[in-house]
């Protein structure tokens, strides 16, 4: 048993922490207020080779492991939830399907520019009528004269406005239901493909969330990712990795809540002493710190299992379920510790709450995570 990070993992975490403190955190409140996508920060992430962090160098990646990726993601999200979500969706949803299932040519052509940060990665699974039940995909792709003809729509898709192509799921064999789903790479400039960014969200204001519409969009046959009709299995395994990452994001937000709350509690004086001297406040901080430590260990274990090539589906769901729920809870407690100021935008904790809530929904709701865990228990 060894709880030490490797020297590489430590240095990656420390460098990203420094970068996040100096370059990302000072911009987070403004990003939240204006909803402006922080493209300049994404460019800087690319300069540090973060946009391809866990992928091999031959595709422009940095060749680090998943533990390192999750550590980096925790730090970025601690500074700014929106930037964290942009980064997470790029790596876990955008790059990963191509890396895991793409042909060598597809990796050269699509994964390499993603790893270099030339464009953002995006993955279109969710549809108006297929959310938790993503097997109920209704978008269709029909092979005609060596081209896939795609019709349908997707909703809530992250990063697509800044993507050159989106990997989407579509029914390629209606008769087989969810076993007839395939993944396809669709260039965003293909005729008939519309990306619309118009959602007004509770939080994650600086993250780009879009709807996709496909009206007889044609892509070459070779844009199929991996084998035909394997899409369902593919996205389940993509989501496993993404769930570990969302767990790390939850820890990032919860850590930000703890840091803000501790600093505030030590400096705020009531009844002649700093409120951190009141046991009621201390217990909140102690519980927060304990849950953060547990959630961090959980995502690190799940990421480690993934790096070892071992099964990690159940642990991924646990990391996501726990990490996201403690983030929301930490944010609520952080607001309480801040009193009236917690409710005011001048302090960051109300933003933490609005950002954290998404983590209990995206990439499988808490209910879905409990279903996965229960299934792994044999229910």
């Amino acid at each position: 048993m060894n709880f030490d990070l490797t020297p590489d993992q430590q240095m990656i975490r420390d460098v990203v922490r420094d970068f996040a403190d100096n370059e990302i955190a000072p911009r987070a409140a403004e990003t939240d207020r204006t909803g402006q996508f922080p493209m300049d920060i994404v460019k800087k992430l690319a300069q540090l080779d973060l946009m391809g962090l866990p992928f091999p160098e031959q595709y422009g990646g940095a060749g680090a492991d998943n533990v390192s990726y999750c550590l980096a993601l925790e730090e970025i999200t601690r500074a700014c939830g929106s930037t964290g979500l942009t980064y997470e969706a790029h790596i876990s949803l955008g790059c990963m399907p191509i890396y895991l299932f793409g042909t060598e040519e597809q990796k050269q052509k699509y994964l390499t520019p993603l790893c270099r940060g030339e464009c953002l990665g995006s993955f279109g699974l969710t549809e108006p009528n297929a959310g938790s039940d993503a097997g109920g995909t209704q978008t269709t792709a029909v092979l005609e004269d060596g081209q896939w003809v795609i019709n349908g729509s997707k909703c809530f898709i992250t990063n697509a406005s800044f993507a050159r192509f989106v990997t989407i799921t579509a029914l390629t064999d209606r008769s087989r239901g969810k076993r007839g789903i395939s993944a396809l790479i669709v260039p965003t400039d293909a005729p008939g493909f519309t990306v619309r960014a118009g959602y007004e969200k509770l939080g994650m204001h600086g993250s780009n969330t879009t709807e996709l519409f496909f009206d007889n969009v044609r892509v070459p046959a070779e844009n199929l990712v991996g084998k035909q009709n394997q899409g369902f299995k593919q996205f389940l395994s993509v989501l496993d990795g993404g769930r570990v990452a969302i767990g790390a994001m939850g820890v990032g937000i919860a850590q930000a809540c703890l840091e803000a709350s501790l600093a505030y509690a030590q400096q705020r004086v009531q009844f002649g002493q700093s409120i951190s001297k009141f046991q009621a406040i201390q217990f909140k901080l102690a519980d927060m710190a304990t849950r953060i430590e547990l959630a961090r260990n959980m995502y690190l274990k799940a990421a480690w299992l993934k790096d070892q090539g071992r099964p990690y589906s159940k642990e991924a769901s646990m990391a996501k379920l726990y990490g996201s729920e403690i983030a929301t809870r930490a944010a609520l407690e952080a607001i309480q510790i801040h009193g009236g100021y917690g409710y005011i935008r001048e302090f960051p904790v109300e933003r933490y709450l609005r950002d954290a809530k998404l983590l209990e929904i995206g990439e499988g709701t808490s209910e879905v995570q409990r279903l996965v865990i229960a299934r792994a228990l044999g229910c």
Partner: protein
Amino acid sequence: MKIVVCLKQTFDTEAKITINPDGKINDQGVSLIMNPYDEFAVEEALRLQEKNGGEVTVVSVGGAKAQDALRQALAMGADKAVLVTAELAAMDEYSTATILAKAIAGLEYDLIIGGFRAVDDGSAQVAGRVAEILGLPVVNVVTKLEVADGKALATREIEGGSEVVEVPLPAVITAQKGLNEPRYPSMKGIMKAKKKPMEKKDPAGLGLDAAAVAARVCALEYFLPAPRAAGKIIPGEPAEATAALVRALREEARII
């Protein structure tokens, strides 16, 4: 051009300093960083190398943990590292400079750069001593550096202004804040760092016996500054308040 950078691992600038019952500084659980002034030195060396080609070697005298600071420099882009671990009961600037100079003497160099001081003991002596031992010119607190035709043109801070100094190479330059903005190590840089050579030595291996490196200065005592007392507000009309302030500064604070 061959550049050697001297660097030291120090306490994090935000570390809380405490003193053990035995009177020594407590280093348990303190996070360690590369001395920030040495980061300017590493950055400057890398920029010169990017412009003129050559090689950057980073050298540190310290405990085994100092490899982390060296590895950070390798991740930023330095080519190789030398760590001299000295297990001495007491070290002073003389010991460190003697060991550093000996380690550097075995390397090829056109330029030696270091931070002008370390943020921990703040003595600002080591680089100057190294220059003296190696018989090289030294320019301190440099905020701008240009190197061409076997010469260095260094701008340095002086009281009330700055001074431009020209020295022949090889020379020792010490970095002041403002020299540059150090880069973050890139992720690829971090992954490559562990494949770069890190040579480990000790004073005996460099041909230095215990007497040659024994400290000349002995720290007798460490103590923390007195905790800051609460501030004081002097009430009243400006004229009276000013008089009271001056009296307090003279009689209580004794600073005027």
